[in-house]
């Protein structure tokens, strides 16, 4: 039991990161039906930016994070603007277009920060808390708190603001949204911007947990995406639960299969998605007749 709980705790903080990545995927998907394959690379960019501001520019951790979010938000806007001609037309092409952006971002990262990675020290005291015989890292609590606040803010934005309501409308029916005077392109742009911001938040937070390297976003992106699908794509509570689930699965497979953890995680994911393509909370069907 003790071991199991420790595994769960170990998985939850990384799971919260996956959840943030998944939220970014879901937000873009529910607004424009598109999966942004460059999302993982944006996470890496965010991680590098945050760590650079924090380590080299000596900004406080929180401020470094905000700066990183702003810069990646701009990247999100650029991606959306370039691919706008394809919106609501050919999604396979858009998907490949985002992969193209991913390739470019990947190269830019290596060009700017080099191919080797860097370790980011934790911004809070490293001594873990002891609770009922379980070890809890203080930084894990920080991650959970920030992820929770970000989720609440996102939900409030979507439900309580006019702009958020407009985005919900676009998500449901972009043609009807256009008919009532909503600027669909702008709505999509904001979705992309927030999605990229969430990616930077995830990247910045994951820095002290994992080693920041050009390969960071690849796995984070795919696992975040898996989390989004698992929760029911486009569903916000689903993305959170999916993220935590993948995080725990990850911690479990890392404990039991060591090097093969990734292999097991993806196989489990594939099987789950074949059994239930719409995910746990999925409402939309994958193949619409």
């Amino acid at each position, binding site marked *: 039991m003790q071991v199991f709980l420790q595994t769960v705790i170990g998985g939850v903080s990384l799971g919260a990161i996956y959840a943030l990545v998944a939220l970014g995927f879901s937000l873009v998907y529910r607004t424009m039906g598109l999966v942004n394959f460059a999302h993982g690379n944006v996470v890496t960019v965010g991680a590098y930016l945050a760590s650079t501001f924090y380590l080299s520019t000596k900004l406080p951790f929180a401020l470094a994070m905000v700066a990183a979010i702003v810069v990646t938000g701009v990247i999100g806007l650029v991606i959306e603007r370039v691919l706008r001609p394809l919106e609501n037309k050919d999604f396979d092409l858009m998907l*490949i277009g985002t992969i193209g952006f991913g390739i470019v971002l990947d190269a830019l990262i290596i*060009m700017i920060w080099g191919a080797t990675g860097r370790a980011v020290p934790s911004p809070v005291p490293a001594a873990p808390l002891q609770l009922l015989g379980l070890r809890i890292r203080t930084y894990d609590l920080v991650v959970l708190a920030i992820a929770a606040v970000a989720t609440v803010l996102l939900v409030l934005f979507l439900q309580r603001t006019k702009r958020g309501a407009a985005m919900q409308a676009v998500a449901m029916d972009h043609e009807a949204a256009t008919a009532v005077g909503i600027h669909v392109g702008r709505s999509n742009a904001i979705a992309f911007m927030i999605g990229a911001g969430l990616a930077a938040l995830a990247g910045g937070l994951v820095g002290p947990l994992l080693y920041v390297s050009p390969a960071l976003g690849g796995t984070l992106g795919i696992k975040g995406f898996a989390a989004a699908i698992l929760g029911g794509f486009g569903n916000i509570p689903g993305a959170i639960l999916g993220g935590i689930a993948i995080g725990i699965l990850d911690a479990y497979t890392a404990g039991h299969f060591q090097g093969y953890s990734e292999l097991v995680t993806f196989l489990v994911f594939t099987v789950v998605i074949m059994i239930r393509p719409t995910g746990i909370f999925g409402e939309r069907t994958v193949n619409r007749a």
Partner: protein
Amino acid sequence: MRYRLALLALALLAVLLWLLPYGLDSYSIHVVNVIIIFAVLAVGLGLAMGIGGQVNLAQVAFFGVGAYATAILTTRSGLGFWFAAVLAVAVTMVVGLLVGLPALRIQSHYLGIVTLGLALAFTNWVTNAQIAGGAEGISAIPVPSLPGVDLSSEYLYYYLELIVFAVGLAFGLFVVRTGLGRRLRAMRDDSLAAGALGADVPALRLTAFLLASIYGGIGGVLYAGVIRYVAPESFNIANMFLLLAMVIIGGRQSLVGCVAGAVALSVLREALVDHPTVAQIAYGAVVVLVVVFAPTGLAGVPVRLRAAIERRRRGGAAAARLQAFQRYDVEPVQPGEQAPVLLRVASVSKHFRGLKALDDVSLTVVTGEIRGVVGPNGSGKTTLFNVISGLYRPTLGRVEFKGEDLTGKPPYRLARAGMSRTFQNLRLFGDLTVRENVLVALDRSRTTESWRYVLRPLSVRRRDQRLRAEADGVLDQYGLTEFAGLPPRSLPYGTQRRVEIARAVAAGPALLLLDEPAAGLNGEEVRQLNEMVHSIRDSGVTVIIIEHNMGLVMTMCEQVTVLASGRIIAEGTPAQVAATPAVIEAYLGDSMSDLPPVPTEVNQ
């Protein structure tokens, strides 16, 4: 003339490729050898993604499986290179089928992420597994032996690769241009319509992955033979995206384009070999630009040029014209009193969550009948068609066709049993020509018979030529000959409707389901439609037709079924039905029911 010119160009190209090694130093020939391997991989990816429409981001894993299997079998099990190579390709095919399994349930983005995840799983496995040599990989793969040829020389290895590549490309083109490729492309354009025409979509999706894995496996074997060393980083995601970029930039729907993309990108990478990140930025940016501005890639350039020249030369005159429909030259079969029942719909209900789209609907259609199905919008007519043709599985009830219970069978099984349909919103295969649209329907060969492509290519070819002649007959009958080589979306709406009917009839059905065939047609076109449907029936096809054009229903149908809110409210001859109070109420609302009945032409 053009054919001969092409043949001449091909011969010239072959000679040039044969002489190529004489002008290259030992480094360049190595580069060329790697380029050919990428070209083979690109052809495989093009077959899966461009032709079959299956987002396959695991092609690099197929490549890896082929290479690693060869390496393991030769160094660990001590097998000879060629025996190991055959086994390696077989192993890759098995892996290809397994990776393709998720495609039966999910498509597009989802499939992309699953295949990408499986590709990552593969690299994860080889970096950890002892048998695969871990991060160091496996070195000292033996030189493939060929009597009289020293394949350790990269110059001679080039010829081996060239031959394999040429055969592979020719086979790929052969597949694309005959029945299997046509069905794959039809499925890519519209899997629903393809299924309704008898294309066994599940088997086709697996075939797309199988084809990709064969090319991946062969590429892997060639790689193991020339580099003689395998390591995980050769099969990472960056290389997957490079491969994808090759296919997209070259033009995914054309295999030759895929090869061109592979060559172009490899050359670019070689030119920028000292600045790999610059090269990566360049091809990433080109992918984005191609996707936005030229989705057909390099392969689309000549087509666009030719179209532009043609437009200038002809100035838009002499457009293709629709010819009259020619009646079927048969003795009309009169439906007798005791005509056998063809279709029996027994107490079918279809619920969508709380909505009862169909509520206890029963319907019997006898052979040789023209049955009209009418009803207000949202009354469940198309849902009924979708249940009959297998797109929806009914919540309750049964559908019997030719006395057999076919409830819940997939659409392609029903199509093969003799059912064919058109769609309310036209579902033509957009990137196929009109002739190919008809060919997809005519071609009844099964995907599981595709082994013929390997073992009996000549019989496949002969069969295809026979089908083409048949297709030309169908097009001629429907007055569509002048449109044969055009893509359907360039056609006027009424003509597209006719193409869809011709396609449905070409499938040789016993039962034809027409979903609002007169929608959007003008008066003359409706008259022709009436004649067409009667002639189709006279040729022995039973017809069920959903239609809003009451004049057409009244003159065309012998029996009419009226649906309202998912229930049958009347059934009988047009005259009987038109006089039923419930029908008038459904159409005009109950406040109108005390008005005198609307006179129809049948009443007079």
